């Protein structure tokens, strides 16, 4: 009884926290704060996984999502200098569109969730030793196994890694002639301040 009371309290705390933080992710104008809020949402999701007896998944969630993806996002934010300035407010049209679509989706999904369906009579025991079970399933090539998707995912990750490197690689600048800091006559035009340049052209 105490255990289920604890579960209840934790679930509702996590639920409220997750909703608030998810709203922070999409509404804050400081992108880095959004990233921190996203990290907190993912952390709370890991907590939910533990409530759902999926400890291994919780570990993977923290390892990959927080240790990898959020750090990558923070890197992206810093490299694109998005953190230095406030993001512009979305236009009213976008705001309206976003909230209408979001609310409509919520309404539709809730309709589906609360629609009458066959009652779940069987009481399922959580899987013991999920690490072992997941490992066996992932490498099982029988009809119940997931070995093909597993291999495909590894291919996808490899392709993504190579693609990321190729896209983000610094393209070497075309070989430039030796510059002398603006002393040569041809370069004066580019090194002087703009106002002065305009005067000269007049």
């Amino acid at each position, binding site marked *: 009884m105490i255990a289920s009371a604890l579960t209840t309290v934790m679930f509702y705390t996590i639920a409220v926290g997750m909703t608030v933080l998810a709203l922070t992710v999409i509404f804050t104008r400081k992108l880095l*704060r959004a990233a*921190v809020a996203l990290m907190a949402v993912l952390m709370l999701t890991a907590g939910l996984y533990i409530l759902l007896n999926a400890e291994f998944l919780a570990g993977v969630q923290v390892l990959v999502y927080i240790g990898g993806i959020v750090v990558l996002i923070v890197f992206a934010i*810093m490299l694109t200098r998005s953190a230095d300035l406030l993001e512009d407010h979305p236009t009213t049209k976008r705001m309206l569109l976003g909230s209408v679509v979001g609310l409509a989706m919520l309404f539709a999904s809730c309709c589906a969730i609360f629609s009458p369906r066959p009652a779940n009579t069987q009481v399922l025991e959580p899987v013991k030793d999920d690490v072992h079970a997941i490992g066996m399933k992932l490498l099982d090539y029988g009809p119940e196994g997931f070995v093909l998707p597993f291999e495909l995912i590894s291919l996808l990750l490899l392709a993504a890694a190579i693609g990321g490197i190729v896209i983000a690689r610094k393209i070497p600048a075309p070989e430039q002639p030796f510059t002398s800091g603006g002393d040569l006559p041809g370069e004066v035009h580019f090194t002087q301040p703009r106002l002065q340049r305009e005067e000269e052209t007049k």
Partner: protein
Amino acid sequence: MHEIALRILLAAGDPPKTIAERATEALPTDPLFAIALIGGAMVGVLTFLTLLGLVLIYAERKISARFQCRLGPMRVGPHGLLQTVADTLKLLCKEDIVPTRADQAMHLLAPFLSLGATVLVLLVVPYSPLLHVADMNIGVLYVTAISGFGVMGILLGGWSSNNKWALLGAMRSGAQIISYEISATLALLVVVLFAGTMSLRGIVESQEAGWWIWRAHGVGIVSFIVYLIASTAEINRTPFDIPEGESELTAGFHAEYSGLRFSFFFLAEFINMFVVAALTSTLFLGGWMPFHVGNFTAFNQVMDLLPGGGWFFLKVSGIIFLLMWFRWTFPRLRVDQLMRLEWKILLPIGFVNLLVASFVVLYNFYLFPGNN
């Protein structure tokens, strides 16, 4: 109160159980006792943390002094024993400065993230058969995940300081930690493969016949070395202290921190060293298992004279000394050398090692294979 203390003492005599297990057992019948256990564990870990910080900082200063032909702190207390305490008091009394135009909230949050990640790892380390706060069936994964989580503290701290050096240090640190995490995890996976479990207690118990470092014909040694190098890089210690290299970046990501918050970063750094040492000794050196050789019963009985906690302490001190020895011997690497070491050397070695390890496991090709 007396009753609770008595029960804790009595419980120590039971077959080994973690504190979390005892609390879970007691929860339906005796919630107060469970709460007392959990609270006691929390207070205990925090006290341990503080003491550990003090001891490690003192040890680092003394040992570094000896390596450099100096004496180290000698004035406060006999042989400078109270120097760290005095420094802590000084840090606590200092003004807590947040730079203007820094992101206040992030600046305040970052040290807690950094220290929190470290403290959370301390909870799952098996110190001795009787002293173990919590055991998880995903122990190794948990440890890796949480230590990857600490990088966020460094990144946020560096960015929110609104200082170029701090930002550079944070970015370097992020790149370094993410890269070296791969090698460290690959090295840990070898032991997981051997032990067949990710629970730290299970891994310790699987080494009853011999420690993993030498039971697997060299595979263990290679992964031990790879893990040691990679985790030294992960905790930003010299020779991998590029993120804070004081001769290049003043102090890197914590350049703008002062007072209590600086001491949080500082403490996290030193506790991280303990965490690495504790994990290395748990995974490769048998944790609290005494040094046993196969079936030489007489020899093993002599080794059993020292209790488990003592063995753990000895191993951890040895690794910590090794880390300090590294620090005061080697010069700092350059950024490109750092990346080369990881991606071109450690990572291929790690992959090949994992492959060889899987063959060792497949054909049960251990020294002293009897007990597994």
